[in-house]
């Protein structure tokens, strides 16, 4: 009996030691995660905070004001650039998502001659340096405009259209990667089941395949949109005179002077991206 008691006491002591050890581990883990999140988000918090400061150099928090947002709305150059950016992002996202999805379906479903090379070439835009891509596009446009001018006599210029074409060119790869990932987990028996139940290829796609890979398509589109939204290098090289885009405009204003106005526009962009991510998460959860 006595032996049993001492044994159980020993066991309790061991358990307590183990618990203390676990407490330490949990504490360390919590500390580590907190520090990591501070590292990730502190700059963003600072950015947002300083968009409300009354200090016109944006260096100190001297008071709270919304005035920078008001001034922002009066800055025609900035607003114009923002609209341009949004237009480029929307058009290039829609087109690259359609092309990329079709491409992903073809790559995943069919075996054709040269498939491996097509596969490798498809991912090249993701890995080659952006500056190389930008210069290549610039050279390409200059070259093809020259040919068009020789044939038709029409002189084409760099404009928003060339930016959109360029953004589509690099967005497709990202869309393909994301959509293919969602097709990998797709059970092809479902398509057979639909056909077995009387659906032709068209009905099978819209009733079964499309709804099931939609989360992947939305994911791909979102990625394309955000990449287009903050692209600097390629936009810088492929835009024409007089048409500016937001990242380029922000850069040129910062070169002159850093004002909280820049913080304000950045905060708005942050808000738009967060809303989009939240929206896509919501849509995907609704589907489940």
């Amino acid at each position, binding site marked *: 009996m006595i032996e049993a008691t001492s044994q159980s006491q020993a066991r309790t002591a061991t358990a307590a030691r183990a618990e203390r050890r676990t407490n330490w581990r949990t504490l360390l883990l919590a500390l580590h995660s907190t520090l990591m999140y501070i590292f990730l988000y502190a700059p963003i918090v600072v950015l947002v905070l300083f968009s409300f400061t009354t200090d016109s150099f944006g260096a100190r928090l001297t008071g709270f004001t919304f005035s920078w947002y008001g001034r922002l709305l009066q800055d025609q150059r900035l607003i114009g650039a923002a609209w341009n950016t949004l237009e480029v992002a929307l058009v290039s996202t829609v087109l690259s998502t359609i092309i990329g999805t079709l491409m992903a379906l073809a790559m995943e479903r069919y075996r054709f001659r040269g498939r491996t090379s097509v596969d490798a070439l498809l991912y090249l835009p993701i890995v080659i340096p952006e500056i190389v891509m930008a210069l290549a596009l610039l050279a390409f446009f200059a070259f093809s405009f020259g040919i068009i001018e020789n044939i038709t006599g029409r002189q084409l210029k760099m404009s928003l259209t060339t930016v959109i074409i360029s953004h589509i060119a690099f967005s497709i790869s990202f869309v393909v990667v994301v959509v293919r990932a969602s097709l990998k987990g797709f059970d092809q028996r479902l398509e*057979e*089941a639909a056909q077995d*139940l*009387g*659906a032709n290829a068209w009905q099978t796609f819209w009733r079964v395949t499309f709804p099931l890979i939609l989360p992947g398509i939305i994911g791909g589109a979102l990625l394309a949109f955000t990449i287009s939204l903050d692209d600097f290098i390629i936009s810088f090289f492929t835009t024409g005179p007089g048409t500016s885009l937001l990242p380029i405009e922000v850069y040129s204003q910062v070169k002159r002077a850093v004002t909280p106005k820049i913080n304000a526009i950045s905060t708005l962009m942050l808000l738009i991206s967060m809303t989009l991510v939240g929206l896509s998460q919501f849509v995907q959860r609704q589907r489940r």
Partner: protein
Amino acid sequence: MKDGYAIEMRDIVKRFGDVNAVDHVTMEIRNGEFFSMLGPSGCGKTTSLRMIAGFEYPTSGEIYLNGTSIGTTPPFQRNVNTVFQSYALFPHMSVAENVAFGLQMKKVPREEIGRRVDEALDMVRLTGYGERRPRQLSGGQQQRVALARALVNRPDVLLLDEPLGALDLKLRKEMQIELKRLQERVGITFIFVTHDQEEALTMSDRIAVMSEGKVLQVGTPTEIYERPNCRFVADFIGESNFIRGQVSALNANDVTVTDGKGLTLRGQMVQPLQVGDDVYVSIRPEKARLSVQRPSEPPNNLFPVTVDRVAYIGSDTRIMVQLGQDQLFDVWEQNTRSTVDRDAYWQRGEQGFLWWPAENALVLKD
């Protein structure tokens, strides 16, 4: 409805690369019958089913559905429906939407769809489950949704690709009975693919035993079990003892076989044989007897044996005996008496007599 056949396969070959997955198969499946294709994996049964469904087209040969050739008709134009092994229910649709899918494709009026979906769910005992999502159902319930989704279209033929494979044993037995009952009620031709011989025996009107792309035998469960036409069928369906030997004498249906090691056996002829043929004598373990005493009227197959191993499995005792020099032979005795007395059961090392009437031994070629 030509000759009352729902499906006719005429000399079907399906080649994948260099392999004939289905190798000159000819089969007739009667209207309203529960027909099983049985065989080990890779025997061509699933490929045959997929050709009837239209997911694969034959390399050569013809398939007829109710007398009409359907060789290269796409699946959505055949009045044939499939219950898939993995069920393949649409995860983004409710149970009712899944069942309604086929009717919507056929442009059946909305009210009629509603009524028929309800009927179909009633039939598989899932009344009131229409609003659920497939993933909220158990395996057995998903299985029944798959059945309802196929049957609601009133197909000429229902194809079932190992539909019970994913269920546990008890549920499987229940579903076997339920499937058979359902088939009798709706009167639709069922073609059932399985590698489980017990499942095929339980449910089928007729069974086709397949191996390596070929049909070895087609017959009723009794015919397949009691009169297998080759060693493979006898071995695959149920269990059997095989004693290898050569035909030494023929007298009408009575065959004498010697194994070259001193055993002489008498058996029944079930296929044409000649003296000198290499054969297997096949005796089912439950069709042989083991006794302590020499039987008073000695049958024509009687051998002194030693018990090698004994396995008590509840309903039966399975006794492995040593016959001749190196032949092991399995005998099953039903435990008809309720007793725990050791002496009532065979023990290892005991001597006894193994015997069977000649009609219980079938002489088969490889």
